[in-house]
């Protein structure tokens, strides 16, 4: 089955091509069927692959030469490791459901087929990214993911906000991409290869089980200095410095894609796209790519404690920052978006403190409950046709299924046992705690409290109280409810895949370097997590259970509320210190170019022309003047000749 792994990304690609060619002529149902079936088939294959990996272990990479570059050949290919087998399943599962959901959501859109086309491409890119064995190939899919998100966020191109958001998403992630690009180049310069295994271990690893775990730093040093085809590291860097540098550059890429501080600003704006797109971006594809990158490059980070610390700190900081912003937003999708940023922060935190398995586990559970939250939000928006929380309310009765699904997602997000989020988040927090990063632990805990508060704030405002709008909200069709149900189930039970008592995922992933996972049961921490989550919910109920209380709380917090409501002014800050200066510099240079550089050119050419005019008007028409000049010329020649002849 692993030999067929290439089919997993190729099927959505085929769907894309089919829709590209014939999409316009097909009915909406046919379009949906093509896309959903392709991705569903991918899901089935992925599942089979995962089972096979679970039984037989990972398979070596299948590669073919792609380009001879300099003295080396760059090969492309794919491989099946336990990590990407799991990712494949998760991505294809969530994607298939989102695709199905979109059938109802996008019904009647003029560019329905185009939408599915882009989504298929998006899924292809993400699956390709997951399955590659090669950093360059990874980067190619990585950028393709970015483009798809650009296309999808800007799908409603006629909305200026959507166009701006798409551009913003692309450019902000582009900044991160350049970091990854440079990191990739430096890695290649150091190790003369793009293959993940060769980068990490100096050779392709046929059977990862034979590799010694826990000493990648040593492996690096040995690899760099004595490996096959000995060559010094670029710029004469010491192994430790080189590894830290490249790891940090790679992390910059992840920061951009996964919307970590300070490049988190694009993700909330990306809400301008259709809601299924948000679900896909937030749950399974785009943002997950950043976390996946760090996980895929985990040996590199392991080898550099400094880089790992940076990852952890950035992750923790992002978690709390986004959670604080999420407290006060009015737009239902924005709240969920900030929750994504925050949850991604958790994952980074996990990877940073070495809790590889926890990070991946949280990525998985998050994918389920976040997709669920977005799709329910989409269902709600579809029903009430607004995104403003304060114009909703009372949907619990009007849309019971959606209500239940959202509740499941919210509980999972809040980390309330036994929902999925509890297990994964708790593992991260306990990993932070046990690794001795108490500050990060505390930060994570506070963020968890905020998370519970804001998501239930959303819940109460949306589903509680009375409906404030004038429409008649109702449940969407089957295409919308099936995905919701499936995801709701997953959001509820997915946590059991990796409980401290039955660490299935941990075992599954333990093929290489997955250290830092402490499966020991720490009841104290678990209780603390659960209590903090419940406290958050309680506060939300207190604030929004009765009208007017929330306003009073907001007024009391005053400055802090404003800060949070305005997203800590990051957009304004970037606008002031980056966007506007660049534009100003550009305008100034444009001016310089037109008037100073070209002006100089005109000055020179004008000078020559003036010289010509001078010569022209030097011809006075007076023959005697000409004669005088002639005699003058004779005199000058005489002087020169005298100089030459040595007479003078």
């Amino acid at each position, binding site marked *: 089955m692993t030999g067929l792994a290439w089919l997993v990304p190729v099927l959505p690609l085929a769907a894309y091509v089919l829709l590209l060619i014939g999409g316009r002529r097909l009915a909406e149902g046919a379009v949906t069927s093509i896309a959903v079936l392709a991705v569903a088939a991918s899901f089935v294959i992925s599942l089979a692959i995962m089972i096979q990996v679970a039984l037989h272990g990972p398979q070596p990479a299948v590669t073919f*030469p*792609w*380009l*001879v*570059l*300099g*003295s080396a050949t760059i090969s492309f290919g794919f491989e099946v490791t336990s990590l990407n087998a799991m990712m494949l399943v998760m991505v294809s599962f969530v994607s298939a459901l989102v695709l199905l959901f979109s059938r109802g959501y996008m019904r009647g859109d003029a560019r329905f087929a185009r939408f599915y086309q882009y989504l298929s491409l998006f899924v292809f890119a993400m699956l390709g990214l997951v399955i590659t064995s090669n950093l*360059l190939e990874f*980067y*190619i*899919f*990585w*950028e*393709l993911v970015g*483009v798809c998100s*650009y296309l999808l966020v*800007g799908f409603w*191109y*006629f*909305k*200026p906000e*959507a*166009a*701006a958001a*798409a*551009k913003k998403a*692309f*450019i902000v992630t*582009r*900044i991160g*991409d*350049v970091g990854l*690009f*440079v990191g990739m*180049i*430096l890695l*290649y*310069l150091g190790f003369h290869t793009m293959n993940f295994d060769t980068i990490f271990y100096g050779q392709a690893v046929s059977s990862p089980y034979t590799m010694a775990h826990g000493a990648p730093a040593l492996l690096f040093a040995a690899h760099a200095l004595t490996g096959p085809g000995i060559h010094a590291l*670029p*710029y004469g860097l010491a192994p430790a410095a080189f590894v830290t540098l490249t790891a940090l550059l790679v992390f910059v890429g992840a920061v951009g894609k996964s919307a970590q501080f300070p490049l988190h600003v694009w993700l909330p704006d990306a809400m301008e796209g259709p809601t299924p797109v948000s679900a896909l971006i937030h749950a399974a594809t785009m943002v997950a790519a950043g976390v996946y990158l760090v996980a895929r490059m985990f040996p590199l980070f392991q080898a550099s404690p400094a880089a790992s610390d940076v990852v952890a700190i950035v992750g923790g900081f992002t978690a709390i920052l986004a959670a604080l912003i999420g407290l006060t937003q009015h737009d239902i999708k924005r709240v969920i978006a900030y929750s994504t940023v925050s949850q991604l922060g958790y994952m980074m935190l996990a990877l940073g403190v070495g809790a590889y398995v926890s990070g991946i586990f949280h990525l998985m559970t998050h994918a389920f409950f976040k997709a669920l939250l977005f799709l329910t939000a989409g269902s709600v928006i579809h029903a009430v046709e607004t995104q403003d929380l304060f114009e909703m309310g009372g949907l619990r009765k009007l849309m019971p299924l959606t209500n239940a699904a959202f509740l499941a997602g919210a509980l999972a997000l809040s980390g309330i046992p036994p929902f999925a989020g509890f297990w994964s988040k708790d593992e991260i927090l306990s990993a932070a705690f046990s690794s001795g990063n108490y500050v990060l632990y505390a930060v994570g805990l506070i963020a968890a409290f905020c998370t519970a508060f804001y998501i239930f704030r959303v819940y109460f405002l949306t589903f509680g109280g009375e409906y404030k709008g004038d429409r008649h909200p109702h449940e969407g069709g089957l295409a919308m409810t099936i995905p919701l149900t499936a995801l709701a189930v997953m959001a509820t039970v997915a946590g059991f895949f990796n409980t401290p008592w039955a660490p299935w995922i941990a075992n599954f992933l333990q093929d290489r370097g997955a250290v830092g996972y402490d499966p020991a049961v720490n009841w104290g921490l678990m209780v603390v997590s659960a209590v903090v989550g419940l406290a958050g919910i309680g506060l939300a109920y207190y604030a929004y259970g009765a009208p007017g209380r929330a306003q009073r709380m907001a007024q009391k917090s005053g400055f802090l509320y404003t800060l949070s409501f305005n997203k800590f002014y990051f957009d304004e800050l970037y606008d002031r210190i980056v966007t506007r200066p*660049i*534009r100003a*510099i*550009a*305008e100034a*240079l*444009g*001016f310089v*170019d037109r008037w100073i*550089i*070209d002006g*100089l*050119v005109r000055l020179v*050419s004008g000078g020559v022309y003036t010289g010509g005019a001078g010569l022209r008007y030097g011809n006075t028409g007076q023959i005697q003047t000409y004669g005088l000049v002639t005699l003058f010329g004779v005199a000058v020649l005489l002087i020169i000749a005298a100089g030459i002849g040595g007479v003078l």
Partner: protein
Amino acid sequence: MNDALFLTVLLPALAALFVLFVPARAASAVRGVSLTAQLLALLFALAAYIGFNKGMAVFQFPFAATWLTVPNAFGTTPLVIRFAFGADGISMPLILLTGVVGLMASMRSHSIHERVKEHYFWQLLLTAGLYGVFASADLFTFFFFLEATLVTTYFLISVWGNEGRRRAATKFLIYRGLASVVLLAGFIGLAYSYAVQAQGASMQVYLGFAPNFLSLSIPQLISEAGKFQLSIAAQDALYLVFLLAVLVEEAFVPFHTWLPDAHEQADTGTNMLIGGVLMKIGLYILLRFAVELLPQGLQQFAWLTGLLGVISIIYGALVALAQKDWRRLIAFSSISHMGLVLLAIASLQAVGLQGAVFMLVSSGLLTALLFYAVGAQADRTKTFEIKNLGGLSKSLPVISGVLLVAALGSVGLPGMSGFISEFALFLGSFATFPWLAAVGTLGMILVALYLLYAMQRTTFGPQRTEYDQLADARPVEYVAMAVFVALVILIGVYPSVLGDVVHTTVQSIAGRIGG
């Protein structure tokens, strides 16, 4: 087969002559002749490309005809002036590029309705000149065709351009004319330096080397360069001469102001030829002559070269951000991209050089495509001003889509030709000049900034009412754009189609220059 290259040059030239004798009223006959000739030339170029022996790093398809013999006071052997053609791994892709862009420009010129016959006459001559430049294996031949491109382009701009065409054309003429002068000085200096050096060296080292030998043949000079080194002083001086010529020729900062003006004024077909092919000549000169024949000069001033490249990258990108006209924006974008190539050449690495050639081809295709798409929308909206556009995705979905593809390709998106080029050339330059390269990567962000900004204003946003009734791409436009997009994606997805041809030559050059 050996004549294929020569035929690519000859066919358009003959067709140009033929067009002269077609009555001006028979515009469609003129178009037909022109298209046929361009297509045939492209097929010959393609045949040569396919028949190119990828394993050899020498000039292939040699074709030479002696034109005149000049008594040589320098020595007893007369100086032979020849028309010599040939292609190696560097020039072969560019010849094919010329064919593609030439044909597409010719198709594009369907929108020319004024003085049709003359237009095709000059366009065919320009194409012949461009083929000749890249296919020449002789300094004189090269210079000859370079000058041919000068006059023909002048006419194309000054007759079929917009209001400011005369000024822009004159500017173009003077700038490039001066560049040719500098280049000629460099050529002659090169030939003579090698002759002098060969004479000196022949006594001691090379038995049987003809004394008093003066050759303008590029392969000959390259083989001399393989035998001995020119003196450092000569290399330094000549390299600076070449660099200066290239800076003007290629519109690098601060000698660039003629290019935006020319692009702003010229018609779309001409812009494709200028932006797509003509603007690759300068860097081709650097690759062809400086890298192979003046390696130490290049080494000596690699930092300067790289620095100038980076300045152009950043400056071009920033100024592009401030442009209000699509054509000027593309011009600055092209300046910025060519800066990348300069940086890559400065790296002296095989990978970097390969990236440089890739970038030349890629940027040629993408620039031509950008001009094509922008021209196609301007045919309909009657404007190139970014601020007057908006929401074109609605009425012109195909053209907008292609414009987006071209823009994303220029941004360096993987899966398209720009990415692999950038990757290879940065690989080279990071190895040699990490700091310059690091600054250069800023260009990768800025390019996204200005192109997406322009895209946002052009195709996104609410549709303007005046553009409601526009008709989308016609079949001929479909074909042209599809060809470009297909090539860009082909190179992006399977770069070996280009890389195999380039690789051996670049590798052998790099082996010589110790990179």
